[in-house]
């Protein structure tokens, strides 16, 4: 018990968040070395997109695989929550809005081609295009903090039954079984890419072990890339940002050791050079994360500790990924003529309008009657 208490204290410190950030960065670079796609050791958005593809929700053949990293993140967070007695089934804070925020967060992320984690990993691999994505992320989170300052709230959640908190971990268990058994149905499902990023992956066992460790550490430290930006912008609190910067350092050092560094803009793996769309996609994504209270990784960890609303966000992301590929909004090597950019820009604008409407209209006076109880 004493060891648990000491660990608990360590993870809340600055050294704790630096340790965890470095670890995530090192593991991400290692997973790439072990077979994951370029600058994609870990990408929550890309990997959920691959899962959507494996299940046949979209039919983009190069991006279909049941990524054990996603499964491991949820399991690791669940394990940490159980050990440290933080598993708390809860739900009911505007779930349908959270679903749509997840949907648009994914649409935006796939225009850029990566979640905030991958933006850091891409930067740490030398991909200059990531700079524009990160600027977009900061801008989007900035808009979100404006709404939060002005009273935006999705309202309270409520304690719920264990079944509510168990849904996402059980779905992940089902996905793990599909990954191990690899059944082939008459429809063609389960789909596994034969070429392209979906065909590139580390071994299942090592990937899931690393992901469980990351999920465990991230649950303990509340590691969150969106929260890092938001806390700096809103309250000048650099705690989480220290972790994110440590992650960048970890990725960079390991990439240097593994010879995975490649500086430049053109020809980067799973990336494009349309900086307007790199920026715009991440504005939508960052804003959606800010309004939902967590980056995609954090939503998985929250799901693991029993948050049913975070699980709904995850399902929204998976549906958003299917939409993005079926409606060709996901990033491609964009031609020069904007007329040929496909539905991506329109989807970004639709998402920004959605976020603005809920940002302006969903306010809840937390300080209303009965909340502050005077003596």
């Amino acid at each position, binding site marked *: 018990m004493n060891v648990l208490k000491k660990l608990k204290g360590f993870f*809340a410190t600055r050294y704790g968040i630096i340790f965890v950030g470095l670890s995530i960065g090192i593991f991400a670079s290692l997973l790439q070395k072990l077979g994951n796609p370029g600058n994609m050791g870990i990408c929550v958005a890309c990997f959920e997109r691959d899962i959507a593809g494996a299940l046949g929700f979209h039919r983009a053949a190069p991006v279909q695989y049941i990524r054990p990293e996603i499964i491991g993140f949820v399991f690791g967070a669940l394990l940490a929550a159980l050990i440290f*007695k*933080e598993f708390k089934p809860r739900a009911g*804070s505007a779930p349908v809005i959270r679903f749509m925020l997840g949907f648009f967060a994914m649409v935006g992320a796939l225009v850029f081609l990566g979640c905030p984690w991958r933006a850091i990993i891409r930067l740490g691999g030398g991909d200059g295009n990531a700079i524009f994505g990160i600027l977009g992320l900061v801008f989007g989170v900035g808009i979100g903090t404006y709404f939060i300052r002005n009273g935006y709230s999705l309202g309270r959640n409520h*304690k719920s039954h264990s079944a509510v908190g168990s849904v996402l971990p059980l779905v992940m268990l089902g996905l793990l079984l599909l990954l191990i058994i690899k059944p082939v149905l008459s429809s063609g499902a389960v789909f596994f890419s034969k070429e392209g990023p979906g065909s590139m992956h580390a071994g299942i066992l090592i990937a899931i072990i690393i992901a469980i460790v990351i999920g465990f550490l991230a649950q303990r430290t509340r590691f969150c890339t969106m*929260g890092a930006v938001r806390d700096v912008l*809103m*309250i000048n*609190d650099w705690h989480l940002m220290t972790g994110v910067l440590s992650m960048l350092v970890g990725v960079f050092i390991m990439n240097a050791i593994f010879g995975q560094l490649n500086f430049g803009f053109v020809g980067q793996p799973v990336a494009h050079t349309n900086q307007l769309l790199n920026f715009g996609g991440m504005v939508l994504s960052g804003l959606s994360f800010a309004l939902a209270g967590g980056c995609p990784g954090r939503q998985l960890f929250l799901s693991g500790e029993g948050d049913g609303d975070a699980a709904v966000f995850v399902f929204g992301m998976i549906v958003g990924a299917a939409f993005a590929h079926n409606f060709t909004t996901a990033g491609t090597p964009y031609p020069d003529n904007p007329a040929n950019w496909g539905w991506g820009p329109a989807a970004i604008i639709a998402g920004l309008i959605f976020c603005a409407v809920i940002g302006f209209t969903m306010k809840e006076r937390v300080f209303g009657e009965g909340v502050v109880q005077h003596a």
Partner: protein
Amino acid sequence: MPDLLDLRGLSCPQPVVESRNMIKKISSGDSFHVLVDTGTSRDNVKRIAVKEGCDVAIEEGGSGGEQEFLLIITMR
């Protein structure tokens, strides 16, 4: 009895924002209570309160899914 902010069930970052607003209103020696129901909120509110120059004492109640934390925040 000092004021009580009931911030149970609110997701990140609202507990921090509301607590910080309250901290900005109080002066040296004043204190107020914050009630939260997740370890994340407890840690985040404590961190920001200490950073803003407050002392924080924490009482834990309940267990498992019923766990709650009462933070007693006093401006130094």
